[in-house]
């Protein structure tokens, strides 16, 4: 005689130290057998009060602090803050500095997408892409090290320009690097695109409809993989992006596979931009005259740029002294993590790992 088997939902903590959560993030899962019924993200493990620290620093001192805000693309953090401060004080940036900034930002975007490509594949069980991606990323890290001495937190883009000029061997070495990376991207595609295991794990998983993406303010590759053509480099132009020719790739389905393909496409576009920027790189100053005791006039500004993880924004309120009254940072991951409870339910834990990886969430950007 078999009685009825009693079943009940149970709760599993995924993280804070799970390798696939890319930092310290805890997802509390309510499970029904193998199925995830409910996800609740718990954040704050990396909260370093960067915004509070910035209020006690002068504008120049804020830049190395914001390096730590999103360390995979620290150039973008430098740049957003510098852009906001320049808007406040209405500083005209020399043309050569703008070209150097674009080159660095795009190199950093490629480096970040390579990390995405490697770690996502590793989370889904393929180790080789990670080794390949880090091998190519090394070319970019060498270029950064040659320019500013740092490999991760650069403190390179300053208010009014850049910290120092590139060395003479930078341009040929950069051309070589983008040539190599450009050749390797088809190799990556050959590794995964037609791989039956990869396709089974990613196609149709974690579908994000465009309406939901806009409602939750998803941005960057995640928004474009859902078919919304919105790229701040085009639609809210900053720096000198209007001088370059590049396409904005979009994908129709909004699943994990599309988010992966889209980022590889973006690497190709970044290579195009860097090629044009190296071609047109003018001679001249690399920094506008900005006093050490930089005091922008009282006012407030919100500046935003297209980062590899979506919209990166900085809000600054100035009262005319040399310290900001308020610095508020906004990273793409903050909004993408909010989406996990929406699209991460009714799937397996293994799918949740794929979704989380495809969002390319980085926790320091969320916790600040």
């Amino acid at each position, binding site marked *: 005689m078999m009685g009825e088997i009693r079943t009940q939902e149970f709760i599993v903590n995924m993280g804070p130290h799970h390798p696939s959560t890319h930092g310290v993030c805890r997802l509390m899962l309510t499970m029904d057998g193998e199925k995830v019924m409910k996800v609740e993200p*718990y*954040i*704050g493990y990396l*909260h370093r*009060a960067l*915004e*509070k620290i910035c209020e*006690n*620093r*002068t504008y120049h*001192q804020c830049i190395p602090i914001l390096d730590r805000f999103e360390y995979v693309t620290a150039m973008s953090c430098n740049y957003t803050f510098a852009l906001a401060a320049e*808007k*406040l004080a209405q500083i005209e940036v020399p043309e050569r500095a703008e070209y150097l900034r674009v080159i660095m930002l795009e190199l950093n975007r490629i480096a970040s997408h390579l990390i995405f490509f490697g770690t996502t594949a590793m989370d889904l069980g393929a180790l080789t892409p990670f080794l390949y991606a880090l091998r190519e990323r090394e070319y970019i890290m060498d270029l950064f090290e040659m320019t500013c001495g740092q490999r991760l937190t650069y403190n390179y883009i300053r208010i009014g320009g850049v910290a120092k000029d590139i060395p003479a061997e930078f341009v040929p070495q950069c051309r070589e690097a983008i040539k190599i990376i450009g050749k390797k991207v088809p190799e990556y595609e050959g590794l995964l695109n037609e791989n039956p295991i990869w396709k089974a794990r990613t196609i149709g998983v974690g579908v994000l409809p465009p309406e939901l993406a*806009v*409602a*939750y*303010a998803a941005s960057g590759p995640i928004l474009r993989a859902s078919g*919304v053509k*919105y790229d701040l480099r085009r*639609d*809210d132009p900053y720096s000198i992006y209007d001088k370059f020719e590049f396409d904005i790739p979009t994908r129709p389905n909004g699943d994990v596979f599309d988010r992966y393909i889209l980022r590889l496409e973006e690497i190709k576009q970044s290579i195009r931009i860097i090629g044009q920027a190296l071609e047109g790189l003018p001679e001249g100053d690399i920094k506008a005259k900005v006093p050490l005791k930089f005091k922008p*006039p009282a*006012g*407030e*500004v*919100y500046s*935003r740029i297209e980062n590899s993880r979506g*919209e990166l*924004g900085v*809000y600054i*309120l100035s009262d005319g002294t040399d310290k900001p*009254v*308020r610095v*508020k940072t*906004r990273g793409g991951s*903050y*909004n993408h993590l*909010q989406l996990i409870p929406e699209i991460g339910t009714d799937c397996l834990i293994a799918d949740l790992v794929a979704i989380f990886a495809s969002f390319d969430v980085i926790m320091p950007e969320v*916790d*600040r």
Partner: protein
Amino acid sequence: MTTEQLKDYIASRFPVMMTLLETGRREPMYEVKAGQLLEVCRALRDDETLKFNYLCNIGAVDTQERLEIVYSIASVPNRLRLDFKVVLPREGASIESVQEIWPAANWYEREMWELYGVDVKAHDNLKRFLLPDDWDKGHPMRKDWDDPDFVRFPEIE
């Protein structure tokens, strides 16, 4: 639509509810009364010419006399950007949640509730998340917040 056209349109569409602040900057900054926040936000989102359907950021600011909540919104179909703020008293600050208009507001509002002590009405999930669960030392982003471990950076000459 250029910034000037946007300014003109807002002036004709919201003559009373949105006040243009003189800030001397290129992008306009508006002030909205706390009581009319939901009405204005809904109109900004649903207006055919504007369609502000994308919430970029909500930032709270403590100016020591008052609290300001700054909303940065954008329109994806029309490629527009707009900032406006709501001014609240420092004591007993309370504001309506804009979650039902822009779901992305959820965490931003939770954050300002936690770090600034702004009470958010009709919010579905006001729980601590950036600070430890057992935090009892007040709202650390307020300017008058102090703690023995908090060291102010010395002035440089």
